[in-house]
């Protein structure tokens, strides 16, 4: 009986291991394919690659369209992630600490941009951005990406605030610190890792966002994913694979940073 049970368990766990392995491979193969095909000299996407070359990377880096798109993406990412983080921290404080009326509604609304179809958001934001006179400017994309990025800092900071009692802030105020001093000296240091992680996720979300950029930007405010998309419609060369690989590398680095930074904070 015992041995049968043991055999069943080990079979089951082996099956699960294989399943997880298969899923991971399923995810990783297309990603790795992009990276592999970017390192070849042929002028079309061929798989498996027959040689090794960094010519498409050189071309990618020398391309002024890509250069301005990278610059736009970084600027939009930094600005929108900053906005999203400030808004996310304030909203999380209101929801978790101030127990404002309608806190549940505010939470749902703050998380919604991560779940709702972005096309809906884009269709809604387009007339607003025209009305505000922002259409085609960096500002329009920054605001839209701030909306898309908001859920990340909101969720991470809510988690950090829920992990300790509001007694900390009350204690600080009982010791003579006003609300601002309490935020600066007590609350912020305790949620810092969550703020940084939220910022990084918002930044990464902006970096690979396409739909909103498609609706809201102009040729001068083109982001990197938008340029890639335009290029795909026009001609498919390994240069696109090189550009995609660069986006992938930057995003991966950001996510690794988001995971490692809180740990570094703890060691301090």
């Amino acid at each position, binding site marked *: 009986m015992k041995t049968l049970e043991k055999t069943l368990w080990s079979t089951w766990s082996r099956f699960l291991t294989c399943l997880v392995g298969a899923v991971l491979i399923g995810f990783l193969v297309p990603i790795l394919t992009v990276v592999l095909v970017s390192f070849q000299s042929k002028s079309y996407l061929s798989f498996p690659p027959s040689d090794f070359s960094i010519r498409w990377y050189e071309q990618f880096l020398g391309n002024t369209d890509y250069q301005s798109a990278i610059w736009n993406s970084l600027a939009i990412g930094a600005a929108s992630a900053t906005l999203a983080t400030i808004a996310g921290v304030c909203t999380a404080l209101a929801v978790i600490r101030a127990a404002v009326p309608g806190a549940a509604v505010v939470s749902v609304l703050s998380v919604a941009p991560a779940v709702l179809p972005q096309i809906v958001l884009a269709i809604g934001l387009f007339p607003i951005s025209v009305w505000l006179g922002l259409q085609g400017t960096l500002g329009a994309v920054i605001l839209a990406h701030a909306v898309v990025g908001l859920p990340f800092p909101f969720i991470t900071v809510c988690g950090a605030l829920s992990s300790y009692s509001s*007694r900390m802030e009350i204690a600080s105020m*009982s010791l003579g610190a006003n609300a601002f001093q309490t935020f600066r000296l007590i609350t912020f240091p305790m949620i810092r890792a969550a703020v940084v992680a939220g910022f990084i996720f918002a930044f990464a979300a902006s970096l690979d966002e396409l739909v909103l950029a498609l609706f809201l930007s102009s040729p001068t405010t083109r982001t990197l994913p938008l340029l890639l998309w335009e290029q795909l419609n026009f001609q498919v060369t390994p240069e696109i694979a090189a550009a995609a690989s660069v986006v992938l590398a930057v995003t991966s680095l950001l996510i690794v940073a988001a995971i490692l930074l809180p740990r570094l904070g703890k060691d301090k």
Partner: protein
Amino acid sequence: MLQMPRRSDTSAQNSSVGGAAVSIRALSKRYNGLDAVVPTSVEIESGDFFAIIGPSGSGKSTLLGMIAGYIDPTAGQIVIDGRDVVPEPIYRRNIGMVFQNYALFPHLTVAQNVAYPLKIRGVPKDEIARRVAESLGMVRLEAFAARLPSELSGGQQQRVALARASIYKPSILLMDEPLGALDKNLRDEMQEEIKRFQQEMGVTVIYVTHDQQEAAFLADRIAIMRDGAMTQIGSPRALYEHPNSRFVAEFLGEASIFPLKSVSAGRAGEARQAVLEGGTPIRIRTDAEAGPGSFACIRPERVTVGPKAKALDNAFAGTVRESLYTPGSIRYRVELDGTGLSLKIRVLPQADMEFYEAGSTVDIGWSADDMSLLKE
């Protein structure tokens, strides 16, 4: 009524740091139409150690929160040294507060935690260093200055919280169940430490706890709260010996309590004839008015067991139902023959004393002066 000596009697010695007098006037709090604290008034003298006890939900923490300033009162005043502080935010009240779970800042070291209130007040760096060292010395934690709170034991964290809440010499120290998270031995040790600390500082302390023994050990005066009201305020001895209600009698110490059917007429303070529900006649002291729903109360250590009991005002023959020898005391539960009433009894063991096993018959009795009349 006998009173314990008050801290204020000796506060002249500590005039440099003396505590503030607190006057709570018709202070109340309603949440969603429910009274958390009904309008409550109490005067707390300068240097007093004032404990508030009561079951959970009795409003004691709400009251403390209003004094500290993190709960807004619905109405009423909190006058500290002649000034109503209700309109003032928590950080301007200059009150020290010690929380149940210490609320030490986890990202700051022990020394930084203790320095925090001084840093906020813009005290120069070298003075902060000197006063932090002095304060940590007072709670015997000099060696732990550079540690994080998470590296300290519960008792040590509590002492850091005490040092942090007192380093800026607040005139009032509020404590919300500060020993609630500690084990029994540590709690006893910390009680003595808190008492010593308060006497050295001369600070006025308002101390919330649900532990009646802790309150009796520490406090000059105790307020017992129930359903948002202070049902009785007095010294530990006054509350124990002259409880004004069944609730107070049962909350503070043990008691055998019987419903009364009738009490004969007589002057206040005199022993009178009374009849318990069920028809048993007894003699009782009456400093309160008897009314419907009155009770007779006798404390377990006021009952005499053995032949001497026959001479007392209330003398009964009884059968021992439970007997228990514990270090320092013998406990009995005795049923009074022919009445169905049962009494809790506690006697101090003496060298030649007889120990009654369960089932034995005994004479028990008590003086009318020891039996008090209680309202519900």
